[in-house]
């Protein structure tokens, strides 16, 4: 079934173009993200998956402009016609929470330990919309109870009195209070056990559907990505190596890394990927997966371009080391559909 993921005006709600992030450290420059390009449609759920440390969270923090001062960021993150990376801090502060919100992966650290949870959830309404504090807290209780945190006594408690899972639900409630157009969820199920994770994600998806928000789901939980996402972008060593619909990624992976990653799943017998994850300071020349790739060939020593492949399997466009900074691919303006896929491999 074909599904158009673009908004009503045909434009995606968020366009990430050639996003590169590096950090200067004593050991050298860590290239945490390189030439990251993707688009997020209105109401769409896009999962960004990959191993721990591949740069997924860095992409989220770069979009929200929450990276530390030693980070150097290049590229564009276009939201509603504005490049988020070039807005002033004041303009960005207005967008955070009300238009784009983020659910951080370590809720116990992200919440203020000395403010009761209900106040923290309701604070957004009070500060941004001028709703009286008492009413904001009442609305916070309602939101929290939808996520399974009911009871007045619980709402008067502090984050340090909550378990990791309960704090995660507080974080989710906080991020949903202002009905943002984009929710970035960075490992939202990480601190939750399997059954709680399922319940919380089901509620998050229900609220997302009600509000029509788009979700950028950052996760290493492949099962979760398969269950709830419309499209999946697979990231390896700071680069997106494949983007396709969820159905295509799981049934017909094209990139050897995607294939290898799926082979690690329990139902495929925990087949580990040979070799070790490369250094982000000195990543391999050419294709970054090539040292671990069983299909490696001479050509893999040079850097592959991202190739766009249509639903009938024909490649019809590409962008190279300059990233997707241009307005369109080199084939010109193309009507894109969710069935199109992109892969960064010399095999295609």
């Amino acid at each position, binding site marked *: 079934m074909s599904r158009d993921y673009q908004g009503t005006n045909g434009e995606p709600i968020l366009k990430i173009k050639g996003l590169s992030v590096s950090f200067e450290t004593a050991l050298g420059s860590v290239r945490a993200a390189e030439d990251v390009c993707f688009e997020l449609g209105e109401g769409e759920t896009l999962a960004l998956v990959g191993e*721990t440390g591949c740069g997924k969270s860095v992409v989220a923090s770069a979009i929200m402009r929450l990276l530390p001062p030693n980070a150097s960021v290049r590229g564009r993150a276009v939201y509603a016609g504005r490049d988020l990376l070039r807005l002033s801090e004041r303009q960005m502060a207005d967008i955070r929470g009300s238009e784009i919100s983020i659910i951080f992966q370590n809720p116990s650290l992200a919440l203020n330990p000395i403010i009761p949870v209900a106040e923290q959830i309701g604070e957004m309404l009070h500060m941004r919309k001028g709703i009286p504090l008492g009413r904001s807290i009442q609305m916070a209780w309602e939101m929290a109870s939808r996520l399974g945190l009911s009871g007045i006594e619980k709402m008067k408690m502090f984050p340090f009195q909550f378990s990791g899972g309960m704090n995660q639900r507080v974080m989710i409630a906080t991020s949903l209070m202002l009905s943002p157009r984009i929710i970035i969820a960075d490992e939202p199920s990480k601190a939750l056990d399997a059954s709680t994770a399922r319940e919380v994600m089901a509620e998050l998806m229900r609220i997302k559907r009600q509000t029509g928000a788009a979700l950028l789901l950052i996760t*290493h939980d492949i099962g979760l990505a398969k269950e709830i996402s419309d499209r999946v972008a697979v990231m390896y060593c700071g680069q997106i190596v494949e983007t396709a619909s969820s159905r295509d990624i799981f049934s017909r992976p094209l990139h050897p890394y995607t294939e290898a990653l799926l*082979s690690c799943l329990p139902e495929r017998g*925990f087949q*580990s990927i040979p070799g*070790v994850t490369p250094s982000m300071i000195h990543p391999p020349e050419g294709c970054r997966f090539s040292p671990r790739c069983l299909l490696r060939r001479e050509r893999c020593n040079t850097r592959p371009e991202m190739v766009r492949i249509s639903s009938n399997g024909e490649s019809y466009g590409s962008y190279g080391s300059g990233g997707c900074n241009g307005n369109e691919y080199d084939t010109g303006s193309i009507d894109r559909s969710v069935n199109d896929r992109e892969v960064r491999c010399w095999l295609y």
Partner: protein
Amino acid sequence: MLAVLRAEEVGKTYYSGLIFRKRQRILEGVTLQMEEGRTVGLMGVSGSGKTTLGKIMAGLERPTSGRVLYSGKEIWSMQGREMLAFRRQVQMVFQDPEGSLNPRKSIKSSIHEVLSLLKVPAKKWQERTAEILEMVGLSEEIVCRYPAQISGGQCQRVALGRALLLRPRVLILDEPTSALDISVQAQMLGLLKKLQRDTGLAYLLISHQPEVIRFMADETIVLNARGERSNQKWEN
């Protein structure tokens, strides 16, 4: 086959409060046996006492009833060299990989600390460190880093490497892969299987993931919510 480590009718009750003492029974009459080169899987719902049983088997907690035998001898009656040998030969790897390492010590210091306790001459530390890192599939690049600067999977492998430095006979693995992503989980499980084949280690694998237990265990024990061994049949 002779059991390396055996728990007999082990029970554990915690008490809280000074005046009105409250009793909380965690485990009740659990018997299990670990043999060389075999893996016992331990499953159960949250709060069923899996980690407590692991700690009792590792000699980190005393049972309130029953006993634990290591090579046929009750562990809490051991003294001196016997106790030292038990402490070295039965190791536990915990669930939280970052919490297993001292955040203020570099990976090199954490490994050298163990070598120092083992009285390995300082000139051999570098060689032994390289050996153990290779065994757990890590590059030497990480030795200068601190736990917060490496991934969860790398921390877990360092923790496993530190345990392996002691050349244990028994490893108690408390959810060793639950904090890891699938590719690192697959690597870690493959590594544990290889180590068992090469060295004949006995594992007690605590996990809530049936697929992990199915992949690793020769025998599986399920604890119910009351901390008793369940009669529920588990097919590996």
